[in-house]
């Protein structure tokens, strides 16, 4: 119910306004002077005030000015009672903050209409004010949430930077363990392109004795330090030859020993694929074995035999489960003689995984095609990697890319 306050020094006017407004269903309070009126307004917070202009003591204008300057009463709709035709006064009233005027002699229908309109405006103002307050609260909430988000983003950013720095450090460490290029009759170039998270690739090659060269490349499943650490561990294990009773000249034996050492249950559900080969530089014979690893690709230039620019391709792999998947897995050795001027490529699947999206071409076959064309044109390893990278729509590898290029040249002198 709307509260209406009537302030008038004239008793019959108060009485008739009181009656007319009560009949409209409003809660009416009356005061017979300005000061009492203001006190009553403070106390009852009316929605609307009807106040006579000419009163002894505080006149209507002064009452209006005081009401309108009070923050909690400023939205109260203020109607000044004036004599009909006193237009000059009305301007003064409006300047003081009066919202409407009612003329004497009072017409009840006009009174009702003006009060209704005033209350409607008051209600709208109130609604607007409360909506405004709600909006303000909402804005405040959003602002503080935004602050929290900003802090969170900052924290995440610094954690990301920390993580990236750690990955970079780990990558540098893995890279430092990898061997440098080999020169002479057996020439080896290697490239290691780690993915942003480290992929678990590792490789090594070294002479077991002056005649026998061991070459291997492995790829631990998964990504991150969890993949890189076992990979480095295997590298150290093989390099220090600390698998007891194992003949490192026999790839199948090495793989079996690794498989027994690396069962998945002990290795946190990790397994790895590996290609392991041993080359004899006197006999040019290669013995190799693989465990779930992509084949090594042997390219031999056969133009001398056929008088045509053709390249003979061999895929060197043996059957066998990845290391660490199943105990008692059997691995077998295979043999191959490496012709002069041939090139052997050993790599992890990271290099051709990105090529698999090429329409109509399986990644490995596509890679072999690329290797073949590069072989005929004698292009170096960096060009090869950048060619493959350029075919990849993402322009970066999702997985580690490791690639060994082993060339055999009987006429070269060993260094």
């Amino acid at each position, binding site marked *: 119910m709307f509260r209406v306050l009537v302030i008038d*020094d004239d008793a*019959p006017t108060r009485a008739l306004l009181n*009656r007319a407004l009560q009949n409209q269903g409003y809660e009416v309070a009356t005061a017979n002077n300005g000061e009492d009126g203001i006190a009553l307004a403070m106390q009852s917070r009316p929605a609307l005030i009807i106040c*006579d202009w*000419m009163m002894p003591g505080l006149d209507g204008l002064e009452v209006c000015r005081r009401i309108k300057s009070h923050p909690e009463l400023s939205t109260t709709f203020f109607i000044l009672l004036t*004599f009909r035709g006193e237009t000059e006064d009305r301007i003064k009233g409006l300047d003081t903050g009066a919202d409407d005027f009612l003329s004497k002699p009072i017409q*009840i229908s006009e009174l009702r209409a003006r009060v209704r309109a005033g209350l409607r405006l008051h209600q709208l103002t109130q609604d607007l004010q409360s909506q405004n307050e709600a909006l303000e609260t909402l804005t405040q909430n959003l602002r503080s949430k935004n602050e929290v988000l900003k802090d969170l983003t900052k924290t995440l950013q610094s954690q990301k930077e920390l993580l990236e720095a750690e990955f970079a450090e780990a990558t540098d460490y893995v890279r430092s363990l990898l061997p440098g290029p080999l020169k002479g009759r057996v020439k080896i170039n290697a490239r290691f392109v780690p993915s942003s998270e480290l992929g678990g690739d590792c490789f090594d090659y070294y002479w077991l004795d002056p005649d026998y060269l061991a070459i291997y490349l492995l790829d631990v499943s998964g990504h991150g330090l969890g993949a890189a650490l076992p990979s480095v561990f295997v590298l150290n294990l093989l390099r220090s030859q600390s698998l007891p009773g194992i003949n490192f000249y026999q790839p199948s034996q090495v793989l079996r020993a690794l498989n027994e050492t690396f069962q998945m249950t002990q290795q946190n559900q990790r397994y790895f694929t590996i290609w392991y080969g041993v080359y004899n530089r006197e006999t040019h014979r290669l013995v190799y074995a693989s465990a779930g690893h992509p084949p090594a690709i042997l390219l031999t230039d056969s133009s001398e035999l056929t008088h045509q620019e053709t390249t003979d391709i061999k895929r060197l792999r043996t059957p066998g489960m990845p290391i660490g998947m199943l105990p008692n897995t059997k691995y077998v050795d295979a043999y191959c003689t490496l012709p002069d001027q041939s090139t052997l490529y050993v790599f992890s699947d990271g290099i051709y995984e990105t090529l698999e999206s090429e329409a109509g071409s399986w990644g490995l076959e596509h890679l072999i095609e690329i290797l073949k064309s590069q072989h005929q044109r004698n292009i170096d390893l960096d060009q090869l990697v950048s060619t493959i990278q350029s075919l990849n729509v993402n322009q970066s590898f999702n997985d580690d890319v490791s690639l060994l290029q082993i060339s055999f040249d009987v006429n070269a002198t060993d260094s």
Partner: protein
Amino acid sequence: MAADWQNRIYTDRLPIDMNTFIDWNYLHQVAQGDEAFALELLALFVEDNQPYVDRAKQAVNEQDFARVAQTAHKIKGSSANIGAATIQSLAEDLEQQALNEQSEEIMSLLSQLEDFMRSIQSFLGVEGIPVSSSD
């Protein structure tokens, strides 16, 4: 309905013609058709304004014409709001004469006002409404 009411209240026992003296249509309008309330408003009017007539007289004696004008304005508004048309026009004259500081005219108007107030009192007495003439 207004016409019925007007006729019923009218009585020729009164010295002044109440029919022209009060704007019954207007009073009926502001009383919202409530006859008892209309008479109550008249009673309130006399009760509230009688002292102002006395105060105006005193002010004339003190040559305080501003106060006379203020009083006249108050009576003017009050009479307008209850439809006391004759009193309203007397009060308007009074306000004007006060500004002109015409003592004799003012005293004459004030005694006329008193007569009319008394007429209303008598009228209300006939209607059974007691009106006190003092504040």
